[in-house]
């Protein structure tokens, strides 16, 4: 097959997949922001009883694009409605995990360990990953989780309290 024709077919295929993905996302405003990732279902937001200004969001993201998405948890930022940045933390894990490497040495953590413990994630198209994002609210509420090439909405109402 000529190279140009192959590229056109590939591009058309990607366009169809992207269109299907976009349609699939309609009607779930609480789950789709902008960019490649969507919440698979509305995430839950919790409040720690001991830390009344802190919030914890727990959800699962899916890569709705046709390309591999690689993210570093530390690059996720939580923003207010006017774009302000809140103190935040994120990890691609549904619960606590401890790494192998001591953290008092200022050595870098190898990439494979970062992937294991959720400091990084690599998502093939259509794949999902758990994510936990926490932040400190001051005067303004969190509106979205910004991951650089897109964002995910933070649901409005507070769901539950942790038992902290």
């Amino acid at each position, binding site marked *: 097959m000529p190279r140009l024709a192959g590229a056109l077919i590939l591009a058309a295929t990607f366009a169809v997949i992207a269109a299907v993905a976009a349609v699939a996302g309609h009607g779930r405003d609480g789950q789709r922001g902008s960019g490649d990732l969507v919440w698979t279902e509305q995430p839950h937001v919790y409040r720690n009883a001991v830390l009344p200004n802190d919030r914890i969001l727990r959800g699962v993201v899916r890569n709705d694009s046709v390309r591999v998405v690689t993210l570093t948890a530390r690059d996720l930022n939580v923003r207010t409605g006017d774009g302000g940045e809140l103190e935040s933390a994120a*990890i691609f894990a549904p619960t606590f995990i*401890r790494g192998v*490497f*001591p953290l008092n040495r200022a050595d870098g953590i*190898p990439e494979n360990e970062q*992937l294991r413990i959720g400091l990084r*994630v690599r998502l093939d198209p259509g794949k999902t990953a*758990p994510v936990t994002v926490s*932040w400190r609210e001051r005067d303004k509420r969190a509106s979205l989780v910004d991951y650089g090439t897109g964002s995910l909405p933070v649901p409005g109402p507070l769901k539950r309290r942790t038992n902290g």
Partner: protein
Amino acid sequence: MKTPTRLLTVLAALTLVSAIGAGSAYGHAERLSYYPNHKLGSVPKYKRSGPSLVVCKSDSRARIRKQLSGRAERRNLALLKRCDYRDIQAAVNAAENGTRILVLPGVYREEPSRRVAEPAEACSGDYQEYDAPGYQDSGKVRVPSFEYQRKCPNAQNLIAIIGDGPDADRRCDQKCNIQIEGTGTKPGQVLIDGSRQKLNVIRADRADGIHLRNFTVQFSDFNNIYVLETNGFRMENIVSRWSREYGFLSFTSDNGLYRKLTAYGSGDSGIYPGSGPEGHCKRYGIEVDRVNSYGNTIGWSGTAGNGIYTHDSKFHGNAAGITTDSFAAGHPGMPQDCSKWERNEIYSNNMNPFSEERDQYCFVKNRPIAERDPKVVCPAFNAPVGTGLLIAGGNRNIIRNNRIWNNWRAGVMQFWVPSSFRGTDPTGQSQNSGPAYDAQTDTSNGNRMLANVMGLTPRGKRAPNGVDFWWDEEGHENCWTRNRAGAGNAITSDPTTLPGCPGSSVHQEINPAKLAALAACATWDPQDDVLQDPPGCDWFTTPRKPR
């Protein structure tokens, strides 16, 4: 947790695994390590006679005169006449199987060992490379092999007892049944000082029958005493202090005894019987007896801390008294199971090495690591401040007849760890398959907490824990029976009702709110201004003293 949410969590965790590709090599991983055949070994007995070598320093005579009297003084002065070695390593090098190495009062800095460079050029070809245990196809690990330790024993270790020869049997051939003993009347009279120059102050590697006794060891850059792949070991009447990571550590070893040890000032844990014997509840392969562990980030910890019987010991004044878990990759014997804690005192574990002041002290941006005071504990890992005993992803453990009080967060905490989190085990010594593994439900099952006295000091004074028992509600056959508080007080727990023994065989699912709170704590990073106290995580805030 409702089933759809649970399924999503499990699927997400599995997807996370499948999404991972190539990565880079490990930093501080150990070589692939294997359990010895426990039937071929035993805990060494104390030898009072037999061939011996004597080690002393130039001021040993003065120390003997000053510190000892009577029979002990006479014995040490007599030994002094036989002293042929100024360094313990020199005596180890000269020792044959079964030798007693008698170390007279003095400070042993082992200067010849310090002069050996690491990495050792002479052993530059003696590395082992294997698939990273994080996940399949996620890169290679390159670490010093056993040959590296055998040929260049003092590259990483101030004192190395390397037992195996060049054969492939992983069993001791030389330096077996060695006993290294301080000859003073107290451990403090013989001091072995690492000055943070070497990863390990003492390394016993395939050194079956090693017996270490009656001295003080300090200032390793990683482990003060490290016992690896050793069948039969005994550590008795030793003080370990201010190790950058671990005080006493054993790994893939069996037939062991930790007895009358004192451990304080460790950046990770005072004692660490990790990758413990795989007796699967039919036997205990390592005994921890009358240990006193305090002032560490964690008093006792063990990833895959299996088959350990810990009794009549004290764990106090740490951030967390005891933790055992199924978290970390590269630990044979996963998931953790079948340890027992009995008649221990676990109290006042509220020391906070994560305070703002300590955070700033340990922050590399403020102070290069070399300029840290080695007596200041800079935590190597995170732990929930104010916790007596934590089981994170353990199975079939017994916590019985302990006295647990004044831990301001929780007396005992238990939570689940998804199976996929522990990665792979390239040695094939972990249970990383089967329906429960696939369902991510093979941890946090069958733990029993029986007849513990909670919130009451030995003198009968009320000293409550924040909550006596905290459980994330995941698992099956976990149970709590006959635990008691002081007169007029009730056991406190979260959830408020706990199953009695034998517990329910129906697998219960986790409380998602608790799950969220735990996950937020995984983002801790002492070298990041915000993540020193990550939002949403209260583990690093000293809990309010309970009333």
